[in-house]
């Protein structure tokens, strides 16, 4: 029983046929071939598949694809190209926050979302990241990258890559 959904993916209106039981993670990875969204657990526990849904960070493995009809979805590969995304990625590279690299796109999305929402406090940022598991870094250099990004962007609120839903 297929159904068609229409949503904006990384700024581009996208239509795709889905099964009602399919998750956003599966549709992104398998049907739309967006491999920047990583599978880590499939049950919402590791944060590796985090994407922005209407500006909020969500684990795409727990979002039914049918639900995103009419929404705005942004994935790590796209976020990395935005002004704020670039600032985060540059900070990550300077601080050595990237190791095996499997969980890190999820962190990018989470950090992006928190900063875009205006969070500027480091402890708040650490709290925002509790849903993202990393086994390589002990989070130290990731937190350093967050601090560096905060310094980079100062008090300004960078333009959010994700605009309002277009429904």
């Amino acid at each position, binding site marked *: 029983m297929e159904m068609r959904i229409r949503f904006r993916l990384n700024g581009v209106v996208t239509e795709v046929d889905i099964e009602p039981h399919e998750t956003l993670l599966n549709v992104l990875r398998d049907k739309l071939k967006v491999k920047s969204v990583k599978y880590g*657990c499939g049950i919402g526990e590791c944060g590796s598949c985090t994407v922005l849904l209407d500006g909020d960070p969500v684990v795409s493995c727990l979002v039914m694809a049918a639900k995103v009809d009419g929404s705005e979805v942004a994935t790590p590969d796209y976020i990395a190209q935005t002004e704020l995304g670039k600032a985060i990625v540059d900070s990550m590279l300077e601080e050595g926050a990237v190791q095996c690299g499997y969980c890190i796109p999820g962190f990018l999305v989470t950090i992006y979302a928190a900063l875009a929402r205006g969070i500027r406090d480091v402890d708040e940022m650490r709290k925002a990241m509790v849903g993202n598991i990393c086994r390589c870094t002990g989070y130290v250099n990731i937190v350093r990258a967050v601090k560096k990004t905060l310094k980079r962007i100062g008090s300004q609120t960078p333009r959010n890559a994700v605009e309002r839903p277009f429904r």
Partner: protein
Amino acid sequence: MYNFVGRSFPRHDGFAKASGLAEFTFDIEVPGMLYGRILKSPYAFARVGRIDTSSAEALGAVALTPDDVPDKLFNPRLLSVEEDTYKDWRVLAKVPRYVGEPIAAVAAPTEDTAQRALEALRVEFEEIYDPILDPFKATSPTARPIHERILRGGRWVEVRNNIAAELRYSEGYLETEEERSSVVVERKFHVPRRYHTQLEPKGAVCKLEPDGTLVVWTTTQTIHNTKILISQVYGIPMNRIDVRKVPLGGGFGSSIHTNLVTLIAVGLCLKSRKPVKLVLTREEDMVHDHVSFEFYMRVRAGATKDGSITFGELENVIDVGAHQVQAYPILGTSLGWFISLYKWRAVRYYGRSVYTNKVPSCAIRGYGAPEITWAVETVVDELAEELKIDPLEFRLANYRGKGEIFWGQGPTVKSVIRSDGVPELMARGSELIGWKRRESPKVKTGRFRRGIGVGRGFHTSGAGGPLSGAIIDYTGAIVKVNEDGSVDYITALQDHGGGTLDAHAKIIAEELKIPPSRVRIVWSGTSTTVYDVCTHASRGVFAGGEAARRAALEVKKKVLEYASRILDAVSPEALRIEYDRELDDAAIFVEGAPDKRITLSEVARTAWQRNWGSISASVSYRATVAPPSFTVYFVEVEVDTETGVVRPIKVVAGADVGTVISPELAAGQIHGGFAIGWSWAVGDEVSYLENGVPAHRMSLADYKLPTSMDLPSDDDFVVVFASTYEPYGPFGAKGLGEAASNPVIAAVANAIYNAIGVRLYEIPMTPERILRAIKGGD
């Protein structure tokens, strides 16, 4: 001193990884590929009868049963020489020996069909046996043999009393030394099975080229050993297998061996003649694929009144599970770590690896060192306390340092210690943590109690040595200068994420005096690289980096030879080479002759235009030593005596890694090493129900991994590097990855003791266990 070594540069794969564009095994798709699924044994010990595949095949799936794969025993890890390789695995089992052992597999054009085909397989079990889960009951003469006979060095050996491997060793006169001792401490320790929790579950993708060559992408720490194993099992010539290197989403030891999923994917691909993708779900990876070894240790050690260590005894029983990955080698390295920690005048060791009906266990970061170090560092702390000697002084007086023999990876891998930063790290670390303010636990009161502990450890840098021992350890590198002076670096060596390959690029750049950005790290496969054994044993920078340096050195010789022709110098020796910051290139020149100057790029272009040939080198390198990298960690913790919860307050992590090639990435190894050690100390544990099924629902949330809120923040984490130089390492560098995690359990345990005045001899030190210890229970 150096142009690039020791300076920070963004890693070459950093943007690809951060943006998610880096392609891992999980992300690879091949047109027309089938999706595989594995049928796993629901029983811990059984005998399979008929497998009916007709319903699965009716759905359009290809089915693979034990009869479809070569009936060949193998060991998925090929690091040991053949004589020391114990083989007891099959691709698919007729006698499954653990819950989750693969019995059959299917592949179909969609994941849905594959899953339905999997569910349509009908398996008859002829017999179901009671599982043997306890390694002490397993060795009873009345216990059912889990394996009757296995292959060692190509010969059949009988397995007696479910003992997978044994190792005894002694040195010196233990009884005499014991008589001399004023204090003797004896303790028993238990380390449970732990899950590696690499973020990428295991998987493989394979396809056949039109000429029959098998191409494989898989989660592995060694592409060449994966190639060799596929060749051994399926009888394919090695030049018809190309295992491609892809980024690995974490290994921590779980992919030193070739994951079973790879061999099953190959079987499905060969039978269907179609590309196949076979990846594990997190649950499958966690419940059925791999765990670390479980240790039962007994340590006995003594010291004289004036504080010199006399003897050490270690009994080490390891539950290896249903098959051998490293059952024998881990006994040797355990002994090696033990003997290399202190200057025991006499040693007695008995190690025994035992089969049980549980998931086969394998190496985890440190390969036994974190566990042995915890046990020894606990006993050493207790000896110092009884003798009323400061634990730091006691360690400094008795540890094996410069000039002593280090055992590297066991009895066949010995070398003399030539660089040793322990005294420096002890001095600087104790200052930074405030060792002097450390009080006896007896004076501490109140609900929240803080304690400071120290742990000293080390790890080997590779498994090289002057003699060809029980372990294979060599590597290779190809360095090629293109016609415009840009450089390609081609290696089989895998980077787990530590930045090993970036360190290599920097080493090549340093040798050739060109910027590291000019060196491209090429990701290729077994067909286009020379042999590298495996990224394990913290050898990536030490052995792989030296191979890269030697290849660069050969290239440099050729560059200088061509330059001497161009510059009309009497010989290449008349030339100097240095990094020219302005031109951002290597400048080659004759001193005192300003017109006799040329860049490396110009040399490359000229060599091309004048038909002098390619500037390239391919080297194979075997390190003749395996030097230890020392780590001294000071940890302050706070114990909530009402809940038993332990919280890290401050970490001062000192590391002697010789020359630091990449400071921020090296610090990252130390942070990550602490994080994994912390979770072993207070959280990680895999246990089983009586039927051999894991005790709790296995998921990452249930497994309680530390999050960003559970570990020390960057302000409370100080990294100290010793100022040492290892004469055998590339530009003085040693290994790091495992040294970074080896002293952690010890330091945390000693800190907990210093807080509450009670010692725990079992990890993880969970709130329940800590409360029980405080209340004086068992």
